[in-house]
């Protein structure tokens, strides 16, 4: 059993390395800027969803307020850069650190709540933060922040002529999020989280400090999501509260993981690779307003998949290969 698990982990790692190399080679053949844009977004959502999966998938604390950390990352980077001239690289780390601290501060009261009460609390907190930022004049209020273009450079992490640097950074981000999940899966924390998810009372009675393990998951998850938010701010170079902290971002982080398989290593990646190109395509083909139709596709897809495959798309692979242990 143990050796089988170790074997699977090694296989996962090799597969991820191969996929990363293939993904890195794709832009050599695909020159279309629009397609490259979709690839950047896909990789970013894969990273975000993977990070969301740490708290909500492995630890079982379903959060629909992760847009808060996404927005915090984006706003920290943008504000530090426009107001104080701090390089986005430091902004990224600062945003991540701030988000992790805030996640723990919010987790302190929130992790007492269970089930729906917890989910609603996460939504409500993110909404409060959104409303506060919308009314915060120094941070641009509802108008948002325009990040000034200071020429292409890795130092300032701005590229106006090519999307390739963003692509490789998003790829690196997705790889990091995947590796962190892969590493945590077999660590002490990973086992604690799964125990907390399955049955918090039983876990507590066996000596798992439930509260601390939830806090750990929240901090890691928030940090990675905030780095993704910082990246997004640099990528679009204009942010406003609704476009980085809106509820749809919380959903867009949750859906790939739910679609692919919640609490699995490959679920978020698989979900993002299917969902994000699909929404972009529906958005470009069906109507110009595009705010509603792509969400209808989302809804239909999620309903269909959750009815047909309650464990997500990854369960198809474990069915195909016939190995039961893959669908943990």
């Amino acid at each position, binding site marked *: 059993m143990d050796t089988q698990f170790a074997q699977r982990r090694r296989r996962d790692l090799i597969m991820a390395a191969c996929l990363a190399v293939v993904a890195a080679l794709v832009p050599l053949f695909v020159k279309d800027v629009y397609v490259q844009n979709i690839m950047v977004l896909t990789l970013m959502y894969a990273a975000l969803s993977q990070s969301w999966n740490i708290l909500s998938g492995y630890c079982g604390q379903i959060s629909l307020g992760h847009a808060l950390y996404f927005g915090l990352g984006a706003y920290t980077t943008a504000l530090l850069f426009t107001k104080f001239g701090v390089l986005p690289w430091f902004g990224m780390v600062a945003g991540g650190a701030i988000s992790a601290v805030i996640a723990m501060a919010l987790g302190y*009261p929130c992790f007492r709540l269970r089930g729906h*009460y917890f989910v609603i609390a996460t939504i409500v907190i993110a909404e*409060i933060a959104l409303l506060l930022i919308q*009314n915060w004049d120094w941070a641009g209020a509802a108008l948002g922040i325009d990040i000034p273009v200071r020429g292409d450079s890795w130092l300032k992490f701005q590229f106006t002529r090519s999307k390739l640097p963003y692509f490789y950074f998003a790829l690196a981000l997705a790889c990091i999020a995947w590796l962190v999940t892969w590493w945590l899966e077999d660590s002490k924390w990973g086992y604690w989280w799964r125990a907390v998810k399955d049955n918090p009372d039983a876990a507590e009675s066996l000596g798992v400090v439930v509260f601390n393990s939830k806090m750990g998951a929240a901090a890691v998850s928030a940090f990675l999501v905030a780095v993704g938010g910082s990246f997004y701010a640099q990528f679009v170079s204009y942010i406003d509260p609704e476009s980085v902290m809106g509820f749809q971002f919380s959903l867009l982080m949750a859906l790939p993981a739910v679609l692919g398989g919640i609490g699995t290593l490959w679920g978020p990646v698989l979900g993002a690779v299917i969902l994000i190109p699909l929404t972009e395509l529906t958005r470009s083909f069906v109507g110009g307003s595009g705010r509603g139709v792509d969400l209808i596709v989302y809804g239909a897809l999620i309903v269909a998949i959750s009815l047909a495959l309650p464990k997500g798309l990854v369960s198809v692979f474990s069915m195909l290969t016939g190995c039961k242990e893959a669908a943990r």
Partner: protein
Amino acid sequence: MFGAFAGGIIVGLVEATTALILPPSLKSVGIYAVYLLVVFIRPRGLFGSM
């Protein structure tokens, strides 16, 4: 059953009163804050069994 009734009245009253005190764009904050406050003190809701 009584919980939903009381909750509905509280939400309505709080929303209307917040709009008096805070700028109208922030009026939902009052309800959200009351939700959080109630749930932090009584994790199963106002009338939920503990």
